[in-house]
């Protein structure tokens, strides 16, 4: 139908100002959509990664009810052995056991309750972001006997710094009294108050001795390189669990349900906004197309009298909308992509974003990245609605009576 396309094209430019304004509406919405979707997608990925990187990891092996009860006696037996097997079978190096207990930590002058973690010092840097956040002293090392790493707020509250001694007391796995003395080797600053105030880390062996764990642990933490490979690894790990023991595998959704839900809530509100934009564009196009059809009633009447079918005329109208839509899609995607890419280099922030972002483990300055999805998903939906909006004026043509139409004002 090259003739149809030529006619459609020419029809569009009979009223250049009108066409430009409608194109403007489409392109404007597209630019906004490309930018917002790029920002969103990047933000979610970052939020998940950062949140999980702190402590949770992507997959954990735990005793059956540990996720709800968090009791000392709900353990994964022979944790090191199981971690080794998981490493071997999956090929992932980032697998490590961890233990935890509530303890009262005391310095010379103060006491505070904290969550004490037993970790394998040499494994943690590849798995958790905490070792990298140590800004005073250093992270634990393989040879450290009785060393402890604490958060910056805790250090301040306890009034200690590196080299000072802390005592901690708690309840061992068998219910007996557990106590030990440790030397502060490092202090970390994550920016997250809960972590900086409430977490302290000691070597796994030290924890094991003090709390009588007998080689068991509370979690085996696994991180994977790509978020979408998690389900596959879940199955692999599941298969490695010894039968009969009461062990389960959890993925990060179960471990941090808030993350997925926060993202869903955000997507929900974003959808609403996108929907409003698309609807407004659709109205614009509807208006334009309807006007352009109505003002050509006489012309269409003549065409019909000459023998062109209403369907053919309708197709020309739809082609006009289609061409306009495609131009708008192209322009919007191009401009939107350029804007996003520019901000991706320069960084995007607004006043107040820094404080807000901190509570979601996001940096105060975002660098949106353009992906195929973000570049085209919004504009394609707009294009679709552009076509839909033009459908009615196009279909109306079937109702035209040639003689009446030719006499129209």
């Amino acid at each position, binding site marked *: 139908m090259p003739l149809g396309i030529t006619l459609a094209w020419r029809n569009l430019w009979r009223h250049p100002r009108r066409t430009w304004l409608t194109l403007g509406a489409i392109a404007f919405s597209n630019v906004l959509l490309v930018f917002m979707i790029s920002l969103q997608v990047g933000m979610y990925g970052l939020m998940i990664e950062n949140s999980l990187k702190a402590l949770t990891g992507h997959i954990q092996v735990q005793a059956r009810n540990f996720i709800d009860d968090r009791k000392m006696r709900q353990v994964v037996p022979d944790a090191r052995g199981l971690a080794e097997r998981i490493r071997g079978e999956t090929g992932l190096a980032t697998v490590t056991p961890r233990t935890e207990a509530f303890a009262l930590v005391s310095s010379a002058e103060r006491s505070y309750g904290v969550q004490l973690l037993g970790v394998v010092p040499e494994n943690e840097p590849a798995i958790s972001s905490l070792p990298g956040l140590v800004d005073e002293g250093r992270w634990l090392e393989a040879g450290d006997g009785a060393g402890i790493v604490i958060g910056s707020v805790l250090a301040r509250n306890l009034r200690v710094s590196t080299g000072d001694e802390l005592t901690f007391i708690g309840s061992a796995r068998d219910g007996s009294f557990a106590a030990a003395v440790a030397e502060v080797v490092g202090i970390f600053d994550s920016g997250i108050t809960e972590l900086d105030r409430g977490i302290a880390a000691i070597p796994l062996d030290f924890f094991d001795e003090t709390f009588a764990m007998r080689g068991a642990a509370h979690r085996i933490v696994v991180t994977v390189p790509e978020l979408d490979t998690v389900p596959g690894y879940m199955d692999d790990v599941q298969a490695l669990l010894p039968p009969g023991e009461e062990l389960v595998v959890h993925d990060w959704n179960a471990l941090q349900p808030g993350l*997925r839900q*926060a993202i869903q809530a955000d997507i929900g509100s974003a959808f609403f906004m996108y929907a*409003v934009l698309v609807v407004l564009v659709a109205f614009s196009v509807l208006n334009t197309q309807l006007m352009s059809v109505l003002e050509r009633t006489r012309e269409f009447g003549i065409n019909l009298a000459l023998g062109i079918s209403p369907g053919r005329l309708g197709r020309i109208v739809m082609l006009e909308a289609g061409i306009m839509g495609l131009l708008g899609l192209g322009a919007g995607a191009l401009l939107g992509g350029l804007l996003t890419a520019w901000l991706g280099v320069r960084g995007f922030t607004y006043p107040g974003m820094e404080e807000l972002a901190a509570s979601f483990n996001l940096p105060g300055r975002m660098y949106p990245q353009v992906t195929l999805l973000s570049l085209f998903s919004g504009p394609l939906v707009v294009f679709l609605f552009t076509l839909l909006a033009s459908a009615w004026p196009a279909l109306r043509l079937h109702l035209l009576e040639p003689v009446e139409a030719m006499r129209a004002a």
Partner: protein
Amino acid sequence: MTGFLAIVTRLAWRNLWRNHRRTLITLCAVTVGVWAMIFMTALMRGMVNDMIRDGIESLPGHVQAHHEDFRFDPSVASLLPLTDAEIEARLVEAGIDRFSNRVNVPAVVSSERASRGVTLYGIDPARDRQLSFLAGALADGRGLEGEDDDGIVVGRKLLETLDTDLGKRIVVMSQDPENDIADRGFRIVGVFDTGLEAHEESMVFAGKRTVQGMLGIDDRVSEVAVLGDDFRNVTPLVERVRTLFPENVEVLPWQELDPYIGAMLGVMDGFVLVWIVVIFLAMSFGLVNTLVMAVFERVREIGLMLALGMRPAGILWQLVIESLILLAIGLGLGTGLAWLTIQPLEDGIDISALAAGMEMFGASPVLYPELTPGDVLLANVVVLLLGFLASLSPAIRASRYQPVEAITRID
């Protein structure tokens, strides 16, 4: 010049309805746009206001006074230098009657099965009622009955974590000023439920005198929380309170105590404006298009009017007023529609399926939209003002037509 204005307005009104299909479609678009502006704004505003109220009620109040070292060393070593009685006297004398003096120290609570680190608040329930969420969030048992009450009120999540129950005893351990352990047994007399698990797990409340006795701190307290009238405007209150205390007492407004929520308020105000402008821009293409098409269709008529003696300003105003009437109707309908759709949602939109996610934002799982006159006014003013500006260009152009050319225009 009312005669002139009256004529021009009547012409504008009639012109609008000459092409009722186009006017109606544009009207629909404006109505939907305005509805979206106001509805979305009300939802967000409601959420943020709730968060702020929650944040303020737990527990800094609008203004808080504490020892200057307190934020670095939130322990029993950083008590306010004045006695409870003195503080109360000074505040009452200054005409401030909504305040709560509290003891605020870190502590460890232990049941038979487990222990947790918490913050222990010693409060005067009568005074504290006005400032905190506690009275309203009580879910089980009873609240504290006086400063001397020897019971303790804990959050529901803490009850679960400690594996204990209402009516059972727990031991609370903290530090006294001599760095010795100060501990006491308490019976759990009440359970609170706020929907925010972080609060439920980390706060416990007991009678002020009881806690003072346990810690051996006589009549001293850690902090005073003061409530004003408007959380948006606390600076005068901060000043008033500051004059009542000596130099080594830090007096802060809530925005500084909880920068997250302070930032949220500013961001939300900005967001509302941006949202309104964006919607308007999306609508404006359609508006200008409508006006341009209207002018185009009436070129000959405009030329005739000019030739017959109508001043160019008359044409200009006719077109601008046409636009403004359209926008005004759209605004009315949109605002009305927004009000209609918000009314049934007043009891809140329940998104408890996403409760844990909302908690990450610090928001509760029920959203209460809040239609504020300020936001509605902003939307209306922005739309009318920008609409006026947008319609100027085609209108000015039309008013500049040369009558003879315009009359003889064929296309």
